[in-house]
């Protein structure tokens, strides 16, 4: 979805019914062009102001089009985790693969995940090495011993079990028979059945059934929606929560046909969130939603003393903090101000907190240090939304708008980016940024972005608490939002965000984008509303939102393509 669409969605949802606490910035820029390829294609007409939509009327019908997810190639994290769970391989072979591009904020977007000859070559050599090493370790082929004269029964047994797990679905006898052909091939070349079996295992790992998450449309279903098969649902679930293949318990629920039962699904979700493999949801969903991943590439100026131990500690802090939300009774909205965090001595000193006694991060209460509570006060986020040598209220404000409220402003017009450095350095940044609001072309958006960033001005470019800016001016962390709401400091600012009606739908939209591996559009807004309502009714815990997405029609169903399979 383009940010324009996002903004419209937010508008449509918040609509007339609710107070616009934080309105989207007035759009005086032309609508984003969706031009057909070609130099002179005409611009489609778009109304400058979309007609107001009544969200209640819009979502009155129960019909929720689940949409389509394109054939989904495993991304690098998914590949690594899958071969870990399938073969016991912990070498992260996908490190050697080209990077996955991301779309709509996540690198598991099925449309963007493309296949290339280079990647195919990598898959092929990885498969050879993975099978050789797993064979040597005894992680495959240990189910039975192949009889030299009659190896087929044992080989069939090994291959059937392996393909069932690797392809994450029921495997037909005929498919196993095809795989057994590799034993005959090896025999022709004078090699042992073991050589043939290993070739078959390699073929399983290079097959599209392994590399893609296949979801089929029944031939009769053109254009209409249908429930996923049990196997397909199990895969969606495990790749959402674990970025990996289903385990035995989940496979069993799929095999005996009970997984579609909402109560069974719920039990599986809670079991899976409590499993160590749920770390993948923290690394891959939260790591991208909260920008924690960008910390790896952050290069604050040397004068801030930012080093590897601090980078690692900041990363772990956000990871452990978010992780706790998966299984606890904390609500999703508590991400803004939960009164605890995790620090080690290095990070505690950085934050001006008492030491905890070592390099290992420990959970501490922030009851006495409320300004440090919540994601907005964590070093990881504050660092990656700063420039290397100064804070950027704009970047911080945009982060809040895009990631928490889905009210992304359009990008600035050309030729205006960056803050001139010749302005009087004795002025605080707020005064220096006044220009944003004095120029009409900038004011519309900056009157929304800048104040949110000002609220975080007590945190320096690496997240240390400060009362004075580097130029010596006292920090002014007050802000005024377009509707006249005023606040001072991070504690008041984060309460405004926490109570914003767009926080829950926005979080849900990000979660759904990640869970489905596709971008969301205005068509998905009613489903988002349903999930928010359901999750809030259950208590609003983070796991309620996760469960809400999983139990939604969007997750359990798919619409068949109008262009049907070829007969």
């Amino acid at each position, binding site marked *: 979805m383009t940010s324009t669409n996002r903004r419209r969605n937010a508008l449509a949802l918040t609509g007339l019914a609710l107070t616009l606490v934080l309105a989207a910035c007035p759009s005086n820029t032309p609508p984003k062009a*969706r*031009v057909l390829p070609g130099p002179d294609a005409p611009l489609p007409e778009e109304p400058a102001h979309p007609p107001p939509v009544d969200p209640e009327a819009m979502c009155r019908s129960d019909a929720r089009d689940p949409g389509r997810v394109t054939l989904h190639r495993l991304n690098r994290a998914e590949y690594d985790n899958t071969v870990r769970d399938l073969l016991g391989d912990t070498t992260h072979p996908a490190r050697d693969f080209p990077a996955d591009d991301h779309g709509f904020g996540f690198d598991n977007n099925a449309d963007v995940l*493309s296949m290339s000859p280079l990647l195919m070559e990598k898959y092929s050599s990885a498969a050879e090495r993975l099978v050789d090493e797993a064979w040597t370790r005894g992680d495959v082929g240990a189910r039975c011993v192949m009889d030299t004269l009659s190896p087929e029964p044992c080989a069939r047994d090994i291959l059937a079990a392996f393909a069932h797990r690797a392809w994450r679905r029921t495997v037909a006898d005929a498919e196993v028979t095809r795989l057994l052909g590799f034993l005959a091939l090896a025999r022709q070349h004078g090699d042992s059945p073991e050589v043939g079996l290993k070739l078959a295992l390699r073929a399983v790992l290079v097959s599209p059934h392994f590399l893609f998450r296949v979801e089929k449309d029944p031939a009769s279903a053109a254009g209409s929606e249908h429930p996923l098969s049990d196997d397909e649902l199990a895969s969606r679930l495990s790749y959402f929560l674990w970025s990996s293949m289903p385990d035995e318990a989940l496979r069993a629920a799929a095999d005996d046909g009970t997984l579609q039962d909402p109560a069974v699904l719920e039990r599986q979700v809670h079991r899976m969130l409590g499993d160590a493999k749920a770390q993948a949801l923290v690394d891959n969903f939260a790591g991208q939603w909260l920008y924690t991943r960008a910390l790896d590439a952050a290069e604050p100026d040397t004068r801030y003393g930012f080093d590897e131990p601090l980078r690692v500690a900041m990363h772990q802090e956000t990871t452990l903090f978010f992780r706790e939300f998966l299984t606890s009774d904390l609500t999703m909205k508590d991400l803004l101000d939960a009164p605890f965090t995790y620090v080690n001595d290095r990070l505690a000193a950085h934050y001006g907190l008492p030491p905890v006694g070592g390099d290992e991060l420990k959970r501490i209460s922030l009851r006495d240090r409320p300004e440090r509570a919540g994601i907005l006060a964590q070093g990881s986020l504050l660092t990656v939304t700063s420039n290397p*040598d100064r804070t950027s209220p704009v970047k911080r404000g945009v982060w809040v708008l895009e990631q928490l409220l889905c009210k992304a402003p359009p990008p600035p017009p050309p030729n205006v980016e960056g803050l001139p450095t010749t302005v009087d350095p004795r002025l605080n940044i707020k005064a220096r940024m006044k220009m944003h609001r004095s120029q009409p072309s900038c004011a519309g958006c900056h009157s929304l972005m800048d104040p949110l960033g000002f609220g975080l001005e007590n945190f320096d470019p690496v997240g240390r608490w400060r009362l004075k800016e580097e130029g010596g001016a006292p920090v002014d962390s007050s802000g005024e939002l377009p509707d006249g709401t005023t606040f001072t400091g991070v504690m008041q600012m984060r309460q405004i965000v926490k109570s914003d009606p767009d926080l829950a739908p926005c979080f849900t939209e990000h979660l759904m984008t990640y869970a489905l591996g596709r971008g969301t559009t205005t068509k998905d807004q009613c489903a988002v509303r349903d999930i928010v309502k359901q999750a809030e009714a259950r208590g609003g815990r983070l796991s309620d939102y996760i469960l809400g997405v999983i139990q939604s029609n969007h997750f359990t169903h798919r619409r068949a393509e109008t262009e049907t399979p070829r007969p």
Partner: protein
Amino acid sequence: MSKKFTLSRRTLLRGAGALLALPLLEQMLPHRARADAAATPAGAPRRLFVFYTACGIHMPRWTPSAVGSDWQLTPTLQPLAPVKDDLIVISGLANAPGRPDGDGHHAAATSAFLSCAKAYKTEGTDIHSGISMDQVAANAVGKATRFASLELGIDAGKGIGNCDSGYACPYANNIAWAGPATPVPKETRPQAVFNRLFADFDPSATQAQVEKRRAYGLSIIDFVREDAKSLQGQLGGTDRRKLDEYLTGVRELELRVNALESQGPSCSPGVAPEDTTDVRVKAKAMMDLVVLAFQCDLTRICTFMLANARSDKAYPFLGLTSGHHTYSHHQNLPSNFEALATIDRWEVEQYAYLVQRLKAVQESDATLLDHSMAYFSSEIADGNSHEHKNLPILIAGRAGGALHTNRHLRYSGDPLANLFISMLGILGAPVSQFGDGTGPLSGLEG
């Protein structure tokens, strides 16, 4: 790294010197190139190297004032002093298709960097640009070598957020495009590149072993191709197109496996580079690998991205505290000009290192550089105004006698695509039409 590889590398390393002292084995010389249309008069193949650098160039310190053979090195071009004789500086070309719809100059211009095609503005679905000139060349001459082309870079991807104002990340991260919807991903780990170039080749294998290995490899390919084809019959149109990408990959893999024995490296690889995050070490390692790949005739077409579009990389080792993209919006402040010129010069140093390495390798009676075109440019000219005209362009090397060097050519807004039409002709991949081009660039050849 696989165990198997360790063994074969040991064999390869036997008696080999360090990377810098590679002996060029005589038998590698143009045994395949002899009948090659793209070969130089001396019989050596022609190579193309493309060096991309992000966020534009500070042009006042780049552009030589004199035109023709009287040109002098400017401050930014100073690192190229040892190879000035081998250089052509080209000013005044424009890449109009790089201009975005609204914002997104860096991504749109980067996808148009070698394609001269307009990128369709989308954040994820329905990506559409055009085939890049390196891939046109690879399609024409790539079959002669083990790798039709190599795509290298320093940065994998941003990892979070959006890439550039409504343009999907593939536009910002790729200059090589096999087709309008198919970016060719790049490798960003020197060690992985080295392994790919040399790992699958075992010079100690007997003919029978090679044939068996090939037969096994092909049998797996046949198996998965059949899987994909039968799966395709059960999928809708969009999914089928994804599987088409897979089948293209399978076809390429088949070519690679078929050529296993005939296209092994014909010179010694030296020592695998260590992985590092230091951009200085990494850039040097990548340049060494380019030279090695050309020298061993593993490929003749290679592109390299020193950074991805809109890179805000910091250069603390140059004494700079802010990021590149931030500086590039210079607002005409002298301090920002200084910073940009410092970064530009460092970029030119990396390119100069490669050019000098190419020049140091003898090939028949000339040097590798004499048989190459090493192209350098950025997606835009000035970073503040996002200029898509007057692009900063260098070509080093004589392309086997096709180019007369040590000149500064100035044009007035001719399409960049015209230069690519000329270059493709020189490379043995003639095209009559490319991007917004109107014909070969006048005054380039000769």
